[in-house]
């Protein structure tokens, strides 16, 4: 299976952002049967050649903390397409997602960590549903032609 890129909003204003970030990290670190790479969203505008090229070449999904869908929209804007997207607020509820008091890692309770697990499993579901050949042969990102 080819690599899959995950772009998380990592928003700073509310809990949804933190959950999006932690769920993305969880998929990357713990669910190793899926080969993922996290992409740095702010790098897009700051001219991150590596991130943009990756998202163009590999299947990429977005994980957003709230209905503003910043990660999804930015990826579409700068890399053209998105292969799947998640809105955390739809999974944990709007009220939770927009909680501005609990944002830092240290403030999270077991309840929040369960939300992280839930979102992580949704990410896995989406990746698993990607058509296996949707990206085969795209590894020609290398300009050496090999």
């Amino acid at each position, binding site marked *: 299976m080819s*690599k899959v*890129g995950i772009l998380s909003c990592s928003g700073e204003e509310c809990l949804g952002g933190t959950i999006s970030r932690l769920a993305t990290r969880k998929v990357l670190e713990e669910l190793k049967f899926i080969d993922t*790479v996290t*992409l740095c969203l702010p790098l897009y505008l700051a001219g991150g*050649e*590596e*991130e943009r*090229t*990756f998202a163009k*070449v590999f299947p990429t999904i977005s994980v957003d903390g709230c209905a503003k869908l910043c990660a999804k929209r930015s990826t579409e804007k700068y890399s053209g397409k998105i292969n799947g997207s998640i809105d955390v607020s739809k999974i944990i509820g709007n009220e939770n997602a927009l909680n501005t008091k609990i944002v830092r890692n240290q403030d999270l309770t077991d309840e929040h960590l369960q939300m992280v697990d839930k979102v992580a499993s949704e990410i896995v579901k989406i990746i698993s549903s990607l058509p296996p050949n949707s990206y085969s042969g795209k590894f020609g*990102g*290398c*300009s*050496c032609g090999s």
Partner: protein
Amino acid sequence: MVENYAILPCNGLDKCAGAISREIAIKLCENAKNEIICPVFYRVAEAKYNKIAGEHPLLVIDGCQTRCASKLAAEKNLKVSKKITITEEAKIHNVELKSNLRLLKNENALIEIILNGLNSAEEKAASSSDKTNASYNFEYETYQKDKFLFRVPKNPEIYFNENDCWAYVIGNRARIGVTDFVQQNLSDILYYTPPEIGAENDQFGEVGEIESSKSVIDIISPVSGKVVSINETLIEKPELINENPYELGWIAELELTDFESDKELLVGFDKYFEIMKKKLENLNA
């Protein structure tokens, strides 16, 4: 002077050494097509001077060890070609600098000595076809692994060793550095320990060290020779190695002692590109 330099003097007004830096800059401009970068005006008119500095090799003249001009150059990301520090020159030539701000006999004598030194060094360098400071025009081949890009310059004057260091050889000099393989593996480089200027170095000897939070690596010189200059900008900004280890992130310059023999154990672009790809594949496994 042979080259047309952009000259950045510290122009320090409150020290004798600063006044000397200014005088040397003026004299250098009277005699050749050099151009002065005014350190004060640079702060407000960046574009003008960035253009000059981009088009010419840069000579930085610091008055004292505070090195304001060097720091300014580093801050503006300028590539320093040559650098002198007046207090050091004074020491070398046994001239005692006092606190006078007007230039007197002693100071003028020192200025003459430094100017002569600059000219003869220039001529010598020119005769040995020293063009390592000329602006780069490297063409890169890129290999992508995951989201990481690994560039390797294709210029035929660039040689590599299997320790992922390169040497850009022109005449009897080489500029050396590390490849993208090194900087990508290290990730954010936080510290750069330069080699000592003047150090005689065997092929595969260590010419400094770079360190990230992941690891520290020795820079293993592809060539033998004497270290004649180091990239001082890296001391403040080692991240330039991550940005581009072939251009602003170069490590040091060596005067070659036995390049014909060194060459035996070096490879060119084609070979190194293959070696690097293989290493990256092995990393995966």
